[in-house]
């Protein structure tokens, strides 16, 4: 087995005895785009800062490119970072901000200017060299931060919610830019976000965290189709997976939880469905319509219908779904292996 480019081995970090992150174990291959995903306060930034060397772990080991850097300073780790706040130097111009690191490292002037031009070209900032950060828009500042990371020329780039200060439209555009940049430069990116769409659309590997612990690591496809816990099921996907208490469905144990995706549910005639629910809302999105449903022992029930569909709010409907589309979670919230799923047929 080849050695991973970056390895976090059982990293733990506590703040005054309180939980920060715990037991973080993660392998990152060279050239991979890894997203650290999770709700606010789950320890994404802490994990990233531990990797960057801005925090020291209480336990565990960090290896980057074959070197144990657990105790090494940030400068020695050969990585660049894009901060959530961008961390631009307010009194320096765009050019000086981007060249700061090269000046520190005494890169010759000619090379410095070449790299500056190149980075500004890639990020579309040419012509803004002499502006101060205060004279730029949010999107432009964000790109200055990117340019600064690019000229550092490191193989590993860390980004902490780099798009969270941008509006939705710009976010989608910059998302593509970052992805393209990563492809062109062949760098490894560890990207922190609380936005599952961002993580799912950009990453090769998603690490979903909750309360300082990794819930699941896998490709976006794996997280979507095989969520390891009910938390993952509810966090990933738009709309998230509906969760139904086992006792509401025939053939499942009471303490089990059954998950089903919106696109796997069908509305059926009264008397033929597996669950009778009430319509709570209709969300028309152009190509499809999401019908929100309510059932006393289910959460987040949504049916996806093609095109435009009209439903009376408050009316009763019945839904059905195929057994192979169900995800079954045990009493501890963990996914139950398929062979443990009792099928309705066996019962009969």
């Amino acid at each position, binding site marked *: 087995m080849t050695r991973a480019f970056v390895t976090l081995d059982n990293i733990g970090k506590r703040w005054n005895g309180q939980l920060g992150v715990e037991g973080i174990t993660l392998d990152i291959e060279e050239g991979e785009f890894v997203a650290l995903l999770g709700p606010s306060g789950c320890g994404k930034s802490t994990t990233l800062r531990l990797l960057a060397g801005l925090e020291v772990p209480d336990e565990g080991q960090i290896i980057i490119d074959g070197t144990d850097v657990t105790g090494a300073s*940030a400068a020695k780790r050969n990585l660049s*970072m894009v901060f959530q*706040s961008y961390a631009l*130097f307010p009194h320096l111009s765009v050019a000086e901000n981007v060249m700061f*690191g090269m000046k520190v490292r005494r890169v010759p002037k000619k090379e410095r200017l070449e790299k500056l031009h190149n980075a500004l070209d890639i990020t579309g900032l040419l012509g803004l060299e002499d502006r101060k950060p205060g004279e730029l828009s949010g999107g432009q500042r964000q790109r200055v931060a990117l340019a600064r990371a690019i000229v550092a020329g490191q193989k590993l780039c860390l980004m902490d919610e780099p798009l969270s200060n941008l509006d939705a439209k710009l976010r989608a555009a910059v998302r593509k830019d970052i992805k393209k940049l990563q492809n062109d430069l062949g760098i490894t990116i560890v990207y922190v976000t609380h936005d599952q769409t961002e993580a799912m659309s950009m990453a090769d590997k998603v690490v979903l965290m909750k309360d300082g612990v990794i819930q699941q690591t896998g490709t976006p496809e794996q997280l979507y189709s095989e969520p390891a816990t009910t938390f993952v099921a509810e966090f990933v996907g738009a709309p998230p997976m509906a969760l139904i208490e086992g006792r509401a469905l025939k053939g499942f144990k009471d303490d089990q939880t059954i998950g089903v995706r919106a696109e796997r549910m069908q509305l059926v005639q009264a008397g033929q469905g597996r669950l009778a629910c009430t319509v709570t809302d209709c969300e028309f999105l152009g190509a499809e319509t999401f019908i929100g449903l309510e059932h006393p022992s289910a959460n987040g029930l949504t049916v996806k219908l093609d095109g435009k569909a009209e439903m009376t709010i408050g009316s009763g409907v019945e839904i059905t779904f195929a057994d192979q589309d169900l995800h079954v979670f045990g009493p501890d919230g963990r996914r139950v292996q398929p062979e443990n799923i009792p099928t309705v047929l066996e019962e009969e």
Partner: protein
Amino acid sequence: MSELAKLERRRRAIYGWLLLSPAAILLSLFAFYPSIATLWESMFSRGTRRHPAAFIGGENYNDLFADPTFWIVVKNNLFYAGITVPLSMFIALSMALWANSKIPAKGFVRTAYFTPTVLPMIAAANLWLFFYTPGLGVLDQIGALFGLPSVNWLGQPETALWAIIIVTVWKESGFFMIFYLAALQTIPVDLREASDLEGASRWTYTRRIVLPMLMPMTLFIGVNAMINSVKLIDHLFILTKGGPSDASKLILYYIWEQAFAFFDSPHAAALTMLVLLVLGVVAAIQFFYIDRRTHYQ
């Protein structure tokens, strides 16, 4: 529509003037009027019973320029400012940088440095009198431990002004440190982290990032220190009274002497005008020249 806009503009103008007026009235009454009155008085002769005060134009100023004591006092004050301003600012900045870093007992260190500021200047002077007193003073006691002879710090022309300078620096550094600390705290930590990641040393970070970002505060403190180097003379009354042989006499003390010891208010007024002029020029240079090259957030 345009009528409405005009009305609105007038309303705003009135509102603006109303807001300005308390400060404008107070300043006129207690700053502008006295300045003009002083200028006026500086152009009259000293009135006696037989010769009432008469307009003599720049005569008082000529007297001053011909007065050797005046030049000694000017030289003293320039020296005093030339040492106290940069020294207290430098110490304040160093202490602030240190007290802002991760050190144990941070709160205690800050309080300790700030203590001299809380003390009234007269009390501080009395404290230092106790340090400087020949034979009994702490300085001499310490010197005696190493077999050094007793020194009359305040009583000899070579050391008197230095003794005054040290008290001022001791008093002012803590005060300016608080200002620097406040400014340092507005610098986001992630700037430090970003420069750490780029491999910048602590010194590079301080020189290229922190100091430029402190520039507005440095300017502000500089102006204040400069003004204080003229204003802060309370300790002269306790420590040296300007002596020996004018060695530690500063301009404001000289003005006080002229006005209230020799009751020569026209010359005191002329001196005051000169001080105002110089301070005005200094402030103008600082605000219009240095200000333009300073980054504000």
